[in-house]
C-alpha cells in the first residue's frame, strides 16, 4: 500500500534508525555470536569457574571489539558509545559472557579519561589486544546494604600514603570479574570530611599483589562476582589514575556509560526473549490451536513488545546523547530505571507464556535470561537508585513558564460537567 504524500520532504533528524556502519557491526556480531556463543557454551561458562572463554576473548580482540571506543593511537577504532551499544545489544542477545564491561568500559575508559599518557600508552593497547583484564572495585559491604553503593559517600576503603606507595585497606564486594583480573581499579577514600566526591582517588592495583584475598560469591545469575579484601595492600604511587582526590568525576562518567551499555545488553536480551516467546505462542498447539490465539497469551506478547521497544528507545537516546557529548544525567537515569524493570517484566511475561518449557534449565535459556536481567538490574545502580537520580533532575526543573495573554477568567466559575451553554443554540438552532 502506498501512502499519499502530504509533505514535501523528509527531515534528517529525530532519527530512530542505526546507520550503515552500525548495521554492519550488528550483522557481523550477530553472525559471529550465533556461531561461537552457543547455548552449550553459555551453560558451560555459567557453571564453570572462570566466567568467560579466553578463546573467545581472543577472537573478539581480533574483531576489534575491545578497542571499539578507543582512539586509533591506542590501537582502537574510535567508535562511539552508541556504536558500542549496538554491539552490546548483540552480546546481550546471546548472553555472551565476558569481562568486556569491566575491562573495556568501566576500567579502560576511566584510564582513557583520567590516566596519564604513560598509563594509557601502556595499558590501552594491551586491552585492545586482549592481553589485559581489569575489574572495577567500587562497592562495599556496608554501602551495598545502606543504599549508597554507587555514591562516593559509600566508599570507606582507604588509601594512605606511605613513601612511594599508598596502602589500601578495606573490603570491596560484588566486584565483577575480579577473579580473572590482571588489575583492579580500586576506588579509595583519600580524604576525610567535605564533599565525599572530592576525596576519592583511583588506583590500579596489581591483582596478584600480596595481601589481597578473593572470595567468589554465589549469585542468582551465576555470574562471577567476588568479595575482595585489601589487607594493607601496597600500591606504587605511579599507579594512581588521575589526580589525588579527583577520581570521582571520571568514575561517575564511566558508570553512566556502563549503565547505558547494560541497558543495551538488556534490550538485546529482551529482543531475543520476545522472539522466543512469540515463536512459542505461534507453534505450541493446545486445544487444537496455537496458544497465541488466546488473548491471555496475546496480552503477554503485546506487553513484551512494548517493554522491549520502549527500553530500546530510552537506551538509544541515552547512548546517543553520551556519544554527542550532550548533557545526559536525566536520560541515563531514565534509561536504567525503565529498562531494568521493563526487561524483568518482559522475562516474567515470557515465563507466563512458556510455562513449563520456560521453567526448565536444560531446554532453553529463559531462566538464565531472567536471572541475568536481575543482575543487570542491580549492577551500576538499581531502579530505586536511578529513580532518585531522576528526582534530583526534577528538583532542578524551573517553574513552568506562564503565558502572558490577558487574564480571561475562563476557568473561574464553571465546572466542566453537564451540557455546555452553546449546546442548545447548536442543537435547536
Amino acid at each position, binding site marked *: 500500500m502506498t*501512502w499519499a504524500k502530504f509533505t514535501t520532504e523528509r527531515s534528517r533528524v529525530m532519527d530512530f534508525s542505526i546507520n550503515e556502519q552500525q548495521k554492519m557491526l550488528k550483522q557481523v556480531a550477530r553472525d559471529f555470536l550465533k556461531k561461537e556463543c552457543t547455548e552449550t557454551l553459555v551453560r558451560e561458562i555459567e557453571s564453570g569457574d572462570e566466567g568467560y572463554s579466553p578463546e573467545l576473548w581472543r577472537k573478539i580482540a581480533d574483531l576489534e571489539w575491545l578497542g571499539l571506543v578507543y582512539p586509533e593511537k591506542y590501537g582502537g577504532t574510535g567508535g562511539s558509545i552508541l556504536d558500542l551499544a549496538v554491539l552490546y545489544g548483540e552480546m546481550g542477545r546471546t548472553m555472551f559472557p565476558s569481562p568486556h564491561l569491566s575491562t573495556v568500559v568501566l576500567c579502560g575508559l576511566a584510564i582513557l579519561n583520567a590516566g596519564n599518557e604513560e598509563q594509557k600508552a601502556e595499558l590501552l593497547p594491551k586491552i585492545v589486544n586482549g592481553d589485559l583484564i581489569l575489574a572495577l572495585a567500587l562497592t562495599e559491604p556496608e554501602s551495598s546494604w545502606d543504599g549508597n553503593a554507587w555514591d562516593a559517600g559509600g566508599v570507606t576503603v582507604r588509601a594512605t600514603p606511605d613513601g612511594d606507595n599508598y596502602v589500601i585497606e578495606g573490603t570491596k564486594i560484588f566486584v565483577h570479574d575480579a577473579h580473572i583480573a590482571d588489575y583492579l581499579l580500586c576506588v579509595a577514600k583519600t580524604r576525610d570530611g567535605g564533599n565525599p566526591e572530592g576525596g576519592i582517588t583511583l588506583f590500579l592495583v596489581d591483582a596478584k599483589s600480596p595481601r589481597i584475598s578473593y572470595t567468589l560469591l554465589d549469585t542468582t545469575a551465576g555470574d562471577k562476582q567476588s568479595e575482595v579484601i585489601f589487607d594493607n595492600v601496597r600500591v606504587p604511587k605511579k599507579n594512581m589514575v588521575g589526580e589525588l582526590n579527583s577520581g570521582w568525576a571520571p568514575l561517575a562518567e564511566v558508570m553512566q556509560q556502563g549503565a547505558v551499555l547494560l541497558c543495551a545488553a538488556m534490550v538485546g536480551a529482551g529482543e531475543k526473549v520476545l522472539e522466543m516467546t512469540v515463536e512459542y505462542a505461534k507453534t505450541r498447539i493446545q486445544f487444537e490451536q496455537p496458544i497465541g490465539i488466546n488473548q491471555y497469551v496475546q496480552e503477554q506478547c503485546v506487553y513484551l513488545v512494548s517493554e522491549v521497544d520502549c527500553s530500546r528507545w530510552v537506551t538509544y537516546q541515552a547512548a546517543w546523547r553520551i556519544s554527542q557529548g550532550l548533557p545526559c544525567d536525566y536520560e541515563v537515569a531514565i534509561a536504567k530505571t525503565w529498562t531494568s524493570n521493563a526487561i524483568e517484566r518482559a522475562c516474567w511475561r515470557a515465563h507466563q507464556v512458556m510455562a513449563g518449557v520456560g521453567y526448565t534449565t536444560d531446554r532453553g535459556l529463559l531462566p538464565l535470561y531472567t536471572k541475568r536481567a536481575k543482575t543487570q538490574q542491580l549492577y551500576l545502580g538499581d531502579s530505586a537508585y536511578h529513580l532518585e537520580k531522576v528526582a534530583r533532575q526534577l*528538583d532542578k526543573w524551573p517553574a513552568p513558564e506562564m503565558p502572558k495573554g490577558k487574564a480571561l477568567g475562563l476557568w473561574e466559575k464553571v465546572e466542566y*460537567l453537564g451540557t455546555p451553554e452553546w449546546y442548545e443554540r447548536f442543537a435547536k438552532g
Partner: protein
Amino acid sequence: MDFEFTEEQEKLRKEIHEFFVNELPLDYRAGFIEVVTRGAPFTEEQLSFGMALQKKAGKKGYLAPGWGKESGGLGLTDMEQGIIIEETGYWGVVWPVSLGLGVCGPALHLFGTEEQKRKFLPPIARGEVIWYQAQTEPDAGSDEANVQLRAVPDGDDYILNGQKTFISATGPADYLYTLVRTADVKPKHRGLSLFLVPAKVPGISYRPIPCMSGFTVDIFFDDVRVPKDSLLGQLNRGFYHAMATFEFERSGTDDAARSKRYLEELVQFCKETKRNGKPLIEDPKVRETLAQIAVETEVERLCGWHGQWYFAEREKLGPQPYNLLELIFKTYGPIQSKKMMDMFGLYGQLKKLSPRVKFEGQVERRWEAMRSAHGGGTIEINKVVIADRGLGLPRISTRLREVIGQAVKEEAAR
C-alpha cells in the same frame, strides 16, 4: 540515529511556543485549557476564545503545517508537523477542529475529489469550522464495521437513516464525517461508505450524553437527504478508507507533551507546598511517584516521536506495524492519576470549584477522566491490533468470528 532537532526546527518550535505564550491568558491552567479548546468548551466565552485562538493559529498555518499551501498548510515535513503538534500539546491545547485536522483532512487527501479538497480542506486548515467524527453506533463500538446507519440512493441524492452515539462534541459542528452502510453484504466491512454531511441539515437531530468527564452526543438521522457528491472515496470502500486514515490518528507527539506540562505544574506545586513543615517534594513517597511519572512521560514522548518518525519514513519502511503510544498511555495513565490523587489524601476528592481545593482540583479531574479512558478504542482493541499486525499472532478473522458466533448460538440453544 538522532534525538534532537535542527536549528531551524528549534526556531520553529520557539515561534510556536511564543505564539502560545502571547495568546494564552495569564490565568491559564494546563489542566483546564482543554475545557476551552476541546473536551466540553462549556460557556459561550470559552467557546469563542477557543475558536478565536484556533483562527489565529490557522491564519499562521499552524493547524495543518504539513498540508500544501493550496489547502491552507505550510508544506512542512512530518517532523516539523510533529514539533508544532508537540508544542500545541504542551500547552494543553486541542483544537475544536482537531478531528477535521486529524481524520477528515487525511481522508480527503487520500480519497477526496479535487473539488472536495478545494471545498473542505482550506476551512479546516484555517480553523473556521468544526467537524465531528461520527463513527460509533449503539451496536458498533469495538466492532466498527457493524454500522447500521443506512444510506439509500434516491435520484441524485442519498437518504440517511439511523443513529450515531458517543460522538465527541468539541463545539457546535459544521460538518460530520461519518461511516454509513450502503450495502448489505458479507463480510459486512464491504458494504460501508464514508460521507461528508453538513451538521445542520433537516432530519439530523442531536441529544446530549453527559459523561464522567467531557461531553458527547447522540446523532439521529431521520430521512436525511444529502447529494451524491457527499460520498468520500469509493462506494462500499468506506471501511477500508477509514482504516487507511486511521494510521494518521496513530502518530502523535502531543499526548506526552500534555503530560509533561501537567507534571511540571505538579512538581512546582510540590516544591511550593509544605507537608509537616517540609516541601512535599522531599517526601520520599511523593518523590518516587513524581520521578516514576517523569520516566513514564519520557517513554511516552519517545513512543510519540517514534511513531512520528516512522510515519515520516513510511515510504522507506512500509506501513507501521503497530504503535505503542496508546497502549502506554492507557496502561500508565490510570495508575498515574490514582497515585497523584493519593498524594493529596482527603483533599484529593475536592473538585475545581470547591472551597479549600488544592492545585485547582487538577488531580481530581484527571483521576476522573482516566477512570474510563477509551477514546480511540479500548486498550483491549489496541492489544488485538498489536498482536495481529505487529506480531502476526493467530487472528480471529471476521469470517472466523461468524463461524464462532454461529456455533456459540447453536450451543446455547442445545
